[in-house]
């Protein structure tokens, strides 16, 4: 696609534009390689897992509503906290981030698709099948129960002898493949496919944060891949990487996990920073304050993010020198983050601020995220961390940055770009109800947890004794969680009611759009831009508006547009990996049935899965698909 977009001028109409096979219904969704449709797939799948993770959170809070509650037993509680964390991070918010990136990034940089549309579809399907595999654990002998960090020895077969943790390692491995593919795709897209005139320093902030996020994915995900492979080998093949008796080292897992895990939290928050940096200037009718310092701060956060992982391990016993070094490097991150906070405030200052739903979420984000940042600096101090470690103070901190930061940012982005994705404006009234119920519920749930933690309530413990002053605060926290659930349901209701209205959103429905996505119809045609636009500055569309122009100056004549073909191969490849993973996981099990034992114990199921995957790859390599063209006459006919 990259070269196709570049060589567009020279490509002659080949006359087979109409012979392309078009799928409809379910097959259209399974075979699509269109970034806009993949965005919607990511949104629904991510939304589904977000709902499951939310339900798990509600169950956890119901269990903790009163002391000595017997609503859940300890094992179920452990499974719920593990799956809540894992699902929310890997299967809930990351896919929704990818949904927004897919929906917006090609439009913002003036491209007709991502660099590798086929890989884009493959990334989605591997994520989805990894997520399904992980959640199958609930009905296949028990979910993972060693926490989302899966620390050894708790996650070793000695202490976790169901298949739960195997579902975790193999499910995450498959889902992580999708994330890595997605990250590489966005790197290639942003480097090679920006519209003429859009230099790096003219890119919208969301494109910048997507670029940096993708770079972090590229560097951080290999670490967790290695860690998960080692843990899988320990558990299924009897290796000794983390087994002390066999000469292994459990602390190695913590290092590997957090070398990935800390950059992971910046993978989560940087896109939210990007969304906020788009929403606030639009609804302040001002350009972003300190654009270049924002870019610099984003890069600095990404760089420092790789040098702080041991602050998760202060109590492991790394020694005072290491703890001091990691304390200081952690506190350093507050500097670029502070730059961002002040830049957003200065953008709003003196602007014509409109509190639409997206801007309400963005304005709510700033103080809420700042509170999470402040507790982060508190936790960065190693001596204090010895007190905070494994208490609800930590739980409050990371929910303030992930929910109060990322999820508010995602809600802002979803309300902001919904008309561009679906051609329909969400109801402002319901949106404001969503905001108020969600943010009040959020602070009720998590603000009190700071104090629960300081009073000594431990995280990951399934119940607590009465008369420790925990009772009232836990009740408040549970009521708040219910309120957050109401907010989420209101959003779903809003989306449902909106889907029944006619698709009548204008090209620039917020009227103050600044970037390229607002110059094309909502939703965009499948080729996005009839003519690639010429970019003449930061906030390209706003610049044309202030010059009195109605639209962008085209950078090319109207010509035949090369499109990638729809294909089912990404789907079949992912199905194959899914089957292979499941087969490998049960390869050492004893089945009552001789035929089943034969299939699994001889790796036949695994082999079938791998044959499907590699067969699909072979088909892809042997069968040259040159795509198809949309001719100028068709473009004019629209």
């Amino acid at each position: 696609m990259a070269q196709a977009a570049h060589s567009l001028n020279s490509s002659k109409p080949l006359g087979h534009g109409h012979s392309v096979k078009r799928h409809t219904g379910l097959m259209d969704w399974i075979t699509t390689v269109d970034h806009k449709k993949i965005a919607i797939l990511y949104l629904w799948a991510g939304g589904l897992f977000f709902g499951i993770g939310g339900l798990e959170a509600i169950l956890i809070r119901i269990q903790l509503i009163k002391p000595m509650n017997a609503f859940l037993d300890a094992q179920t509680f452990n499974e719920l906290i593990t799956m809540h964390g894992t699902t929310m991070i890997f299967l809930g918010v990351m896919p929704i981030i990818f949904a927004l990136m897919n929906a917006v990034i090609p439009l913002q940089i003036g491209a007709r698709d991502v660099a590798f549309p086929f890989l884009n579809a493959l990334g989605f399907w591997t994520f989805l099948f990894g997520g399904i595999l992980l959640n199958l654990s609930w009905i296949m002998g028990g979910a993972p129960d060693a926490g989302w960090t899966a620390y050894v020895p708790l996650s070793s077969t000695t202490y976790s002898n169901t298949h739960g943790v195997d579902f975790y390692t193999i499910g995450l491995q498959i889902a992580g493949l999708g994330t890595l593919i997605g990250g590489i795709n966005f790197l290639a897209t942003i480097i090679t496919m920006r519209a003429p005139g859009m230099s790096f320093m003219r890119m919208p902030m969301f494109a910048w944060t997507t670029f940096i996020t993708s770079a972090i994915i590229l560097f951080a995900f290999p670490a967790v891949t290695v860690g998960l492979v080692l843990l899988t080998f320990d558990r299924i093949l009897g290796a000794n990487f983390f087994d002390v008796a066999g000469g292994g080292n459990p602390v190695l897992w913590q290092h590997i996990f957090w070398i990935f895990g800390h950059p992971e939290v910046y993978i989560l928050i940087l896109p939210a920073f990007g969304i906020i940096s788009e929403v606030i200037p639009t609804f302040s009718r001002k350009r972003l304050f300190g654009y270049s310092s924002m870019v610099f701060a984003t890069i600095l956060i990404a760089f420092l993010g790789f040098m702080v992982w041991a602050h998760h391990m202060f109590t492991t016993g790394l020694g005072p020198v290491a703890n001091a070094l990691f304390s200081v490097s952690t506190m350093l991150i507050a500097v670029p983050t502070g730059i961002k906070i002040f830049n957003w405030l200065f953008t709003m200052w003196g602007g014509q601020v409109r509190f639409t739903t997206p801007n309400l979420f963005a304005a709510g984000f700033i103080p809420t995220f700042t509170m999470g940042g402040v507790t982060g600096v508190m936790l960065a101090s190693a001596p204090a961390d010895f007190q905070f470690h494994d208490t609800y103070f930590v739980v409050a901190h990371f929910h303030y940055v992930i929910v109060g930061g990322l999820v508010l940012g995602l809600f802002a982005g979803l309300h902001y770009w919904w008309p561009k994705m679906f051609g329909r404006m969400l109801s402002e009234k319901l949106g404001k109800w969503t905001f108020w119920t969600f943010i009040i519920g959020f602070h009720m749930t998590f603000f009190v947890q700071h104090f629960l933690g300081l009073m000594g309530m431990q995280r990951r413990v399934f119940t607590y004794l009465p008369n420790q002053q925990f009772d009232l605060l836990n009740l408040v926290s549970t009521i708040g969680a219910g309120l957050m659930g109401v907010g989420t349901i209101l959003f779903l209701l809003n989306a449902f009611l909106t889907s029944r209205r006619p698709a009548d959103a204008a090209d620039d429905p917020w009227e103050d759009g600044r970037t390229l996505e607002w110059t094309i119809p909502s939703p965009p045609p499948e080729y996005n831009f009839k003519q690639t636009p010429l970019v003449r500055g930061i906030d390209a569309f706003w610049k044309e508006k202030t010059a009195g122009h109605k639209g962008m100056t085209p950078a090319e004549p109207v010509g035949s547009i090369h499109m990638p073909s729809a294909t089912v191969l990404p789907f079949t490849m992912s199905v194959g990996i899914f089957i292979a993973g499941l087969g490998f996981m049960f390869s050492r099990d004893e089945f009552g049935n001789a035929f089943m034992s034969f299939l699994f114990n001889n790796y036949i199921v695994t082999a079938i899965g791998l044959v499907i995957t590699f067969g699909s790859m072979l088909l892809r390599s042997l069968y040259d698909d040159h795509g198809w063209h949309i001719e100028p006459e068709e473009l004019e006919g629209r």
Partner: protein
Amino acid sequence: MATEQHSQEGVVKHRHRHEGPQKHIVVFIFSIVLTLIAFAAVAAGGVNPAFAVVLLLVMAVLQVFVQMGFWMHLKDRGHLIPIIFMIGGFFVAGTSIIMALYWVWWD
């Protein structure tokens, strides 16, 4: 991608001077010599093991520069982004190796 580069070669020629094969032959011989020195240092025997290790490391580093610079084209113009990302990769991988040596291997 490949076809496009070929078709553009004629246009590109006058923009930046096309290098002849001469330089590449020299570099190729140089990397063979590096390999031979490293191989000889061990195969010949009689070389002090400590010296051999240092020599091997020096040869390896030179080899990496030759491979990256000439055969991966990192010395050419327009390769800033690959270089930045390689340095990033070295940085992260290096941190992990130092971690593993310092806290897991020696501790």
